[in-house]
């Protein structure tokens, strides 16, 4: 769902490096495209963009006008990877290639538009799909991860007492607080559902607990526009890398169970009237459901 493969158009236009800039410009104008991958004998050697064309004499060879350093991406790569690559290299386009074969070009506008479908309009946080995608990528990349599951205490009662408009204000403000506390280099934050938020982080379990404490403290200190105390309950779970290496289940399956553990830990925190409850790190050789049972006691 979140791979870039489906952003590729059916028709691919390329040009050899021995062609003229004039021809490249004509092809781009005819097909209303902003760039052409430059391919010699089946091999990608560059990319010529409308910017390159504006800066070059039309008589020049494409070889003398093209950008030689091409940033490519696999068709199976996620929107997340594509978005980060575009930002990292400050470019507008990525050439999609599979094993040296050019499959197409995707633009920043396409990626941003597609990415927008996974942004929650109320809080402007990522939706859960992005969270899951990122968690899987981290796990596949060999990272040790922790998941923090947060929900607003008694949110249903607040909605009933003050109305949904006020409830929305609390959700937006809570999201703002969360954004200021997380570090985007190591944490991926999402609005999981309703009044629930989730963070997947590469911090250790202990550091994840510290982050949860900071969040809970920041929310508790916030001045809300009505006489009510807003508190959060947090559940934390973690995946141990050494165990994950021997794992046969797919990472998506593991993430779901880590989220489930964190969500159950959050419920446990509420039940115990404590702000945070940390579940065990997942024991992946055992059934994940056994882990859940241990948390529930």
């Amino acid at each position: 769902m979140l791979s870039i493969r489906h952003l590729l158009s059916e028709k691919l236009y390329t040009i050899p490096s021995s062609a003229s800039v004039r021809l490249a410009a004509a092809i781009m104008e005819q097909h209303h495209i902003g760039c052409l991958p430059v391919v010699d004998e089946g091999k990608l050697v560059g990319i010529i963009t409308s910017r390159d064309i504006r800066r070059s004499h039309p008589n020049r060879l494409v070889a003398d006008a093209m950008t030689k350093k091409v940033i490519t991406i696999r068709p199976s790569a996620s929107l997340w990877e594509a978005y980060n690559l575009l930002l990292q290299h400050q470019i507008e386009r990525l050439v999609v290639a599979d094993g040296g074969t050019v499959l197409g070009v995707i633009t920043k506008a396409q990626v941003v538009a597609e990415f927008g479908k996974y942004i929650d309009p109320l809080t402007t946080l990522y939706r859960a799909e992005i969270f899951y995608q990122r968690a899987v990528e981290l796990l596949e990349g060999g990272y040790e991860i922790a998941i923090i599951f947060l929900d607003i205490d008694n949110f249903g009662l607040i909605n009933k007492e003050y109305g949904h408009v006020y409830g929305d204000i609390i959700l937006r403000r809570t999201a703002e607080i969360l954004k200021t506390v997380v570090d985007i280099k190591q944490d991926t934050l999402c609005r999981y559902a309703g009044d629930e938020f989730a963070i997947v982080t590469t911090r250790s379990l202990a550091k994840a607990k510290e982050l949860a404490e900071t969040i809970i403290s920041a929310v508790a200190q916030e001045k809300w526009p009505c006489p009510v105390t807003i508190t959060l309950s947090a559940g934390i779970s973690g995946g141990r890398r050494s165990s994950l290496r021997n794992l046969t289940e797919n990472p998506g399956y593991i993430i779901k169970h880590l989220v489930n553990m964190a969500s159950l830990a959050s419920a446990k925190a509420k039940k115990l009237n404590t702000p945070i409850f940390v579940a065990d790190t997942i024991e992946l050789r055992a059934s994940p459901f056994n882990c859940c049972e241990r948390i529930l006691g």
Partner: protein
Amino acid sequence: MLPRENSGSLDFDRRAEIVIKISEFEIPPVQDVLLVGKKAPVGPEAVRRMVDAVSPEQYEVVEVDHDIFEAIVIKKSLLKLIPKEKLLPLIMEEGSRIADEQMVMKAQVRISIHVRRAVTF
């Protein structure tokens, strides 16, 4: 006898005059040095392909970081006489006095080595 045409009441002649100048095509056409402007109609790769085709292995294409020029094509034999680190800045300095980014300039370079040696006996 040229054909005569009638156009109303006026008569006129149409003539073609052909002037042919024939001279030998210089191989290589580049002479000693070619300075390629950044916005010139040909770029370094085109020049490289041209000199490789007409004079293989005789020229070196040096891409430069310069305000006006993008590359210099230079005869390798010249570089045996003087290192390119010494020669290229001189050529670019002189070339930039008269060229702009859109031009390709050719230059003839003659290098004489003057040697004075003393021996004791």
